[in-house]
Structures are given as structure tokens and as C-alpha cells.
């Protein structure tokens, strides 16, 4: 009932807003003596008011908006599954909302990839015209970028960060709900682009093409500007949460590494996301208002957009990968049952990447015809980034070395992150070197590079994190055997597909084409077949998740015997996470350190709910978080 009310309210108010926007603009235009309808301007206005209507209708009006007018606010307290469909301010609900939404977007984006690979099985045209191919390719790119930017940050970040730092929620819960509820309109708008002719410009939307192309571009612009807004607001929320909401005793030196990674990520999102918005805004103004930002004949410059765009979009790749590193290191430490190796260096690396991420953007423009003096500095800065990134590797490899590796599904995914990213990172060096980039730029070598980094680095981490937190989120255990099947299937499929993809790139196959040179037929056929194989692996995943969520065996409170706070509360956690707020005493990763405790729950001792029988010695019940083999005294 509540769910229906909220979704119907959102849709209804969204539609009303949409028509009001169009109508209002039409009225003003008519009064000023223009045509009431101007496709792009009308769509823009309709969209803006539609989105406002959507979030208000979803429940923001009651929970927040009324306050601005001095009215009393109210929440929709929905029970059970319905809470996922209302304007819910609980970070755990928002995290799951994010995850499920983006898994759907991921599957749709993957479906686009399958269509692309089907077209690319052979040179010449198989299924699609050039126009259709371009629009599928652009949609795949932008949807996947959205998944990469937001699924791990918004999903796992929202879910895990407050738990990991011992807080009861995020700093600004209503803002948090708003950032989620802005996402569905973005996704819907992107999915509408084929109705207006499809995005023709890929995800990068370079002008002048994006100024001259069809009307779908306007949907792309407004959707992505909204998406940027959610990114900024989310980043702000994380920074404040991590600074102010840590449990007593959780000093910066004891912060779980995933939280550190989210901290660095949040700063990047906060600082740079405006770049994407500005670049799209300028495109939008060129289109809608007939301005000349990029029209060389009137004094504009197309390269301006590339600078502004990459000013955001390079740091964005670290928005994608830093939380991936963070969660992978987290899992690696717990499943190796060893302290995180060189923790301080890892933190330094994350902050170093944060610092360097803003000064390397023009490595995407080495062949763009920018002035020659810019190449050298950007080459140097780009290659410097491999030093902090290398430290992450040190940390991961040092942790598994001599560990007691418990190869659960999440652990396998975490190790795969390191494996894949080593390949993706090294190919990045080829691209960062100008003499090699001149040939490789805009070839399939780049496509292979970024699938290795984004998919190999982040999406693998995302899936690992989903398995890792599945028991906590749902209170049920997933099927481990299916999980492992999914892992090996996906890992092999991924590596075959994208490793081979380097080769056509070197041979001179350019990106974003529906038709290629016939001498690359065999290679592309293999890539396509491997791609289908890869795609099929997700069926196992979807089945495992759905089945286990409904029928899976009940999960323990701490199935992984991990020491961090997220595992010291019930699965799933109660509304404000910890019935008794924790007090942090020691380092989260002190496995093998006798007598070490991460956190205590003061006063809980006696009423401690019976814990599941533990299979390892020394797990005394009272000081939760002791967890480690040394056994928690204290």
C-alpha cells in the first residue's frame, strides 16, 4: 500500500511537473511572441519540473519539503519489503535501493554490450545500422559509467560506511534519500534517448558533434547533470559522516580501509563532478540558446569542452576504482586472517591518488591537437599516479602472503580485482606514454584497458562486496557453490574477452565502429563468443541472489568471523544499527595479535544474545569485535 502510494505519487507528481514545466514555458514563450513549443527547451523545462515533482511525490515533500514552509513533517513508515519503495532515510535501505537499481542498470547495459558484440562478430553489418549501433554503444557506455560511479559508492558505501564506523546512520539521512530518488529519473531518461533518435556521441559527448546531433542529446545532458548532482550530494554526505559520526575511539588511524577509500572518493566526487556538469551545460546552452562556446567560427573552441570534461572524467575513474580497492583490501585482510599489510602506506596511497587525480586529465587529449607544451607535464603527472597505485598492490600482496586464505566467493573476487587491475594498470602506462598513445588512442587497446580497470577492478569488487554483505543485508546466506561457479565463469569469460581485445587495437581497429577491417574477423569473433560466455555467467548470479534471498538459510551475525563493526550487529542490523553504541579500542585488522580487541559494547555483557556456536578457539562472547584467533580478553 505504502509502496504503491509512494511510487504512484512519484510518477504522478513527476508527470504533473513535466507538463507544468512544458506548459509554463509555453505560456511564457507565447506571451513573448515565440512558438509555445520548442523541442529542446520544452524538454529541458519539463524535465526539471518533472524531476522536482518526482522526488517530492516520492515522499520528500512530507519528510522534508514541508519543513521549509514551517509545516510539520511526517515519514511514511512502511513495513517489510515496502520500505524499499518509499522515501526512506535509513542508510541500509538506501544502500540496497542503490544496489538493486544499479544491478538492473548493469544488466541492461550488459545486454547492450551483447548486442554490440553480436554486431561485431564479423565485418560488415550483421544486425544494426550505423545509427543503431552508435546509440547502443553510447547507451552501454553511459549506463555502465553510471553503474561504475554510483553502484559501489552509493550501494555498498551507504550500506557499510555507517556500520563500519559504528554510527547509527549517515550524517544527513534525508539528503541521502534524495540522492537515491534522483537516480530513477536519470535511468528512465537515458532509456528514453532511443525514442528521440539515440545518443550519437558515445559517453564522452564531444562537441561540436554533440551540438549538431539529434534531440536525444538533450535528454543525455539533463540526465547526466542530475546524476552529477547526486554524486556531489552523496560525496558531501560521506565526508561529513566520516568526519563526525565515528564511534568514540575510532581514530583516523583505526579507520577501516574501505572507509578511508570512501573518504578519498567522496572528496573526488565533491571536487570534480562539477566539471561534467559545466561541460554538459555549455553543450546544452549551445544547443538550446544558440551560444557559441564550441563554434570556432564565432570564437569558441571545441577543445575547451574536452578540458572541462576530462577535468571531471579522469578523477571519475578513481571514483570508480578507489572504493573497489578499499573493499577488496578489506576482504583480503579478513579472509587472509592477517593484519592489513602496510596500512599507513595504503592510506597514503589513497590520499596520494586523491591529490594527483586532478592534474592528469589531458592524457586523454594527447592526440587532440592541443598545444605541444602540454604533453610533457601531463605525461609526467600521469605516470606518477602509478606509484601510489602500486602501494595498493603492495598492501594486497603483502596481506595474502603467509596468510590463512579462506577462499570464499568474496575473497576470490577480491583477489581477482588485484589480478585484473594489474593488467589494466600496466596497459594504462602504454597509454600514458605519448609515443605509444598516438597509435593506441581511440583504438580497441583503450577499450581493453578500461574494461580491465573498470570492470576488472571495480565491477569485480562490486560483486565481491555483494556476496560479502549478502548475509548482512538479507539475513540469509547465499549458495556458496553457485557463487564460486559464478566467479570462475565470470573471471575466465572476462579475461578471455578483454585480453584478446588488446590485439585488434594494436592492429588498428578503432573504437565506436559498427564495421571493421576484414582481416580482424577471427579475433573479433573470438572476442564476441567469449563475451557471450561472460554475459551468461550473470544468469547464475541473478538466480543465486533471488533464490537465496527468498529461500536461503538464515545467516549468522558474523559468518566471516570478521573483526570490523559491521559484523558485530545482527544480520540484518536493527534500525539504528547498534542497540548499544560501540566504543573502539584497537585496530580493526589485528588478526593474530593476542588479546587484541577492535571494539567493546559497554554494558552489553550479560544480555548478550546467544551467539552462534563458534568454530574457532578463543571467541569469547562478551567483547564483540575481539573476534580474532587470539581471543578477545578485556
Amino acid at each position, binding site marked *: 500500500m505504502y509502496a504503491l502510494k509512494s511510487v504512484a505519487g512519484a510518477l504522478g507528481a513527476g508527470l504533473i511537473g513535466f507538463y507544468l514545466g512544458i506548459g509554463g514555458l509555453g505560456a511564457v514563450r507565447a506571451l513573448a511572441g515565440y512558438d509555445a513549443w520548442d523541442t529542446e527547451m520544452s524538454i529541458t523545462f519539463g524535465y526539471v519540473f518533472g524531476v522536482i515533482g518526482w522526488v517530492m511525490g516520492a515522499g520528500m515533500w512530507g519528510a522534508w519539503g514541508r519543513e521549509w514552509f514551517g509545516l510539520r513533517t511526517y515519514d511514511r513508515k512502511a513495513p517489510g519489503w515496502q520500505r524499499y519503495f518509499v522515501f526512506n532515510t535509513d542508510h541500509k535501505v538506501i544502500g540496497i535501493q542503490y544496489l538493486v537499481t544499479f544491478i538492473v542498470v548493469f544488466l541492461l547495459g550488459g545486454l547492450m554490450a551483447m548486442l554490440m558484440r553480436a554486431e561485431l562478430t564479423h565485418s560488415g553489418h550483421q544486425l544494426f545500422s550505423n545509427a543503431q549501433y552508435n546509440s547502443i554503444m553510447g547507451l552501454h557506455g553511459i549506463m555502465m559509467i553510471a553503474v561504475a560511479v554510483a553502484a559501489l559508492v552509493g550501494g555498498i558505501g551507504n550500506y557499510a560506511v555507517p556500520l563500519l564506523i559504528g554510527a547509527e546512520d549517515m550524517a544527513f539521512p534525508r539528503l541521502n534519500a534524495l540522492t537515491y530518488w534522483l537516480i530513477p529519473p536519470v535511468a528512465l531518461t537515458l532509456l528514453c534517448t532511443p525514442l528521440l533518435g539515440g545518443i550519437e556521441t558515445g559517453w564522452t559527448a564531444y562537441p561540436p558533434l554533440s551540438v549538431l546531433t539529434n534531440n536525444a542529446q538533450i535528454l543525455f545532458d539533463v540526465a547526466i547533470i542530475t546524476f552529477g548532482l547526486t554524486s556531489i550530494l552523496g560525496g558531501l554526505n560521506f565526508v561529513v559522516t566520516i568526519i563526525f559520526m565515528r564511534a568514540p575511539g575510532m581514530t583516523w588511524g583505526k579507520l577501516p580501509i574501505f572507509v578511508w577509500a570512501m573518504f578519498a572518493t567522496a572528496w573526488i566526487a565533491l571536487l570534480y563532478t562539477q*566539471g561534467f556538469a559545466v561541460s554538459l551545460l555549455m553543450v546544452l546552452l549551445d544547443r538550446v540558446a544558440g551560444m557559441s562556446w564550441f563554434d570556432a567560427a*564565432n570564437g569558441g573552441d571545441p577543445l575547451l569542452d574536452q578540458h572541462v570534461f576530462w577535468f571531471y572524467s579522469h578523477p571519475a575513474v578513481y571514483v570508480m576504482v578507489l572504493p573497489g580497492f578499499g573493499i577488496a583490501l578489506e576482504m583480503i585482510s579478513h579472509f587472509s586472517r592477517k593484519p592489513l599489510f602496510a596500512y599507513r602506506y595504503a592510506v597514503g596511497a589513497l590520499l596520494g591518488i586523491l591529490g594527483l587525480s586532478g592534474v592528469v586529465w589531458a592524457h586523454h587529449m594527447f592526440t587532440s591537437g592541443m598545444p605541444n607544451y602540454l604533453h610533457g607535464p601531463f605525461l609526467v603527472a600521469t605516470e606518477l599516479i602509478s606509484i601510489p597505485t602500486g602501494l595498493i598492490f603492495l598492501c594486497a600482496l603483502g596481506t595474502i602472503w603467509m596468510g590463512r586464505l579462506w577462499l570464499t566467493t568474496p575473497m576470490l573476487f577480491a583477489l581477482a580485482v588485484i589480478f585484473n587491475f594489474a593488467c589494466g594498470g600496466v596497459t594504462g602506462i602504454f597509454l600514458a606514454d605519448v609515443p605509444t598513445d598516438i597509435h593506441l588512442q581511440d583504438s580497441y587497446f583503450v577499450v581493453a584497458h578500461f574494461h580491465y580497470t573498470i570492470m576488472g577492478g571495480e565491477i569485480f569488487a562490486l560483486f565481491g562486496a555483494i556476496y560479502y554483505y549478502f548475509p548482512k543485508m538479507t539475513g540469509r546466506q547465499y549458495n556458496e557453490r553457485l557463487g564460486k561457479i559464478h566467479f570462475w565463469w565470470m573471471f575466465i569469460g572476462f579475461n578471455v574477452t578483454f585480453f584478446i581485445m588488446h590485439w585488434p587495437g594494436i592492429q588498428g581497429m578503432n573504437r565506436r565502429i559498427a564495421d571493421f577491417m576484414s582481416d580482424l574477423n577471427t579475433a573479433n569473433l573470438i572476442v564476441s563468443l567469449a563475451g557471450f560466455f561472460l554475459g551468461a555467467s550473470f544468469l547464475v548470479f541473478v538466480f543465486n541472489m533471488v533464490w537465496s534471498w527468498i529461500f536461503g538459510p538464515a545467516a549468522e551475525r558474523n559468518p566471516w568471523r570478521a573483526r570490523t563493526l559491521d559484523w558485530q550487529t545482527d544480520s540484518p542490523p536493527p534500525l*539504528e544499527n547498534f542497540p548499544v553504541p560501540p*566504543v573502539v579500542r584497537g585496530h580493526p585488522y589485528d588478526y593474530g595479535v593476542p588479546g587484541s580487541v577492535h571494539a567493546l559494547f*559497554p554494558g552489553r555483557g550479560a544480555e548478550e544474545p546467544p551467539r552462534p556456536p563458534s568454530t574457532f578457539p578463543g571467541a569469547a562472547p562478551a567483547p564483540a569485535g575481539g573476534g580474532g584467533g587470539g581471543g578477545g580478553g578485556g
Partner: protein
Amino acid sequence: MALAGTAAHAPEHVVHDKAKMKLVGLWLFFFSESVLFGLLLSARFYLERINREEVDQLLGLGITCVLLLSSVTAFTAETAIEHDRRKLAGWMLVVTILLGTGFACGVGFEWGTAHFSKEQAFGSIFFTMTGIHAAHVISGIGLLVLTWFQLARGRFSGKDHWPVSGTVMYWHFVDVVWVFFYPALYLVK
């Protein structure tokens, strides 16, 4: 850590400094917005270096003064409410709103009379930058109206006035942005 103390009664929650969190959140928002304005400013110099078309200097100076003055009145409003002087605060908010509206009208007038077109690079720059800034001014006016409305209904006091302070801070921020935009659009060359 006050461990022993908290242990006795199993407190519901650690108390967080909500006021400070809101303040920091707002500052982070300004931080992010500065990047937006900074990028526009950089774009302006990237395209046109320090070239500039002729603009109405008198009008520019006038609206700048109006906006700066409005910052003073906004500040007065905030101080007034801190000292529970609700009436003065209300009037000062009204004056701020009027001055802000004056500024917005001034920009509108400039748009109507400018002799360069938005189809030229400088025009694009000028209209975009003043437009984005004016959009912030107008949203600031909206916030001021909402706070005034609540103030008039007796909502704020010396102890509880965060919305007033937040709005006023936002207003100052928008002013500071103009302090950078004004020379870049009216004075350089």
C-alpha cells in the same frame, strides 16, 4: 574515552554535534560550487583571454554595490536573530530580498540592452556567467523568502536560527562569487 560513564546505562546514541555537521556540510557544498564557478571563470579566460566587449560600466558598478550592500543587511539580519531581535531581523531580510531582486533586475536589464550577441564567444561567456550567477541569486532570494516567512510566523530564536544563518551564508557565498565575476566580466582588459 568516557567508557566507564557510558557503560552504566547503555546510552541510546553517541551525541553528535549536529550544528557543526550542518555547517561543514554547507561549506563543502560551497567548495563544490566554487569549482563550478571557477571552471566558468577559467573557460572565460581560456576562450577570450582578457578581451572584453563594451559593457554598461555604470550599471555594473551599481548592481555590484547593491549586491554588496545586501550582504551587509543579510549579516545584520543574522546578528539580530542571534540576539532575539526578531523584528529587526525580519526587516533586514526584507531589505536583503529587495536588494537581491534589484540586482537580478539589473542583470536582466543588462541582458536586454547589451549590444553583443550570445552567438559571439564573449556573449556566450557573459550570458552564461551572469546567468548562472543570477540563478544562484534567485534561488537565494527564494530561500530568503522562505526564511522570512517562517520568521514572521515566529519560528526562530536566538538559540534556534540555523536556517537563517545557513541562508545568509549562502547569500554571502553568492556575493563572493560576484566579487570574482565582476572584474572578469566588467573590468579586465
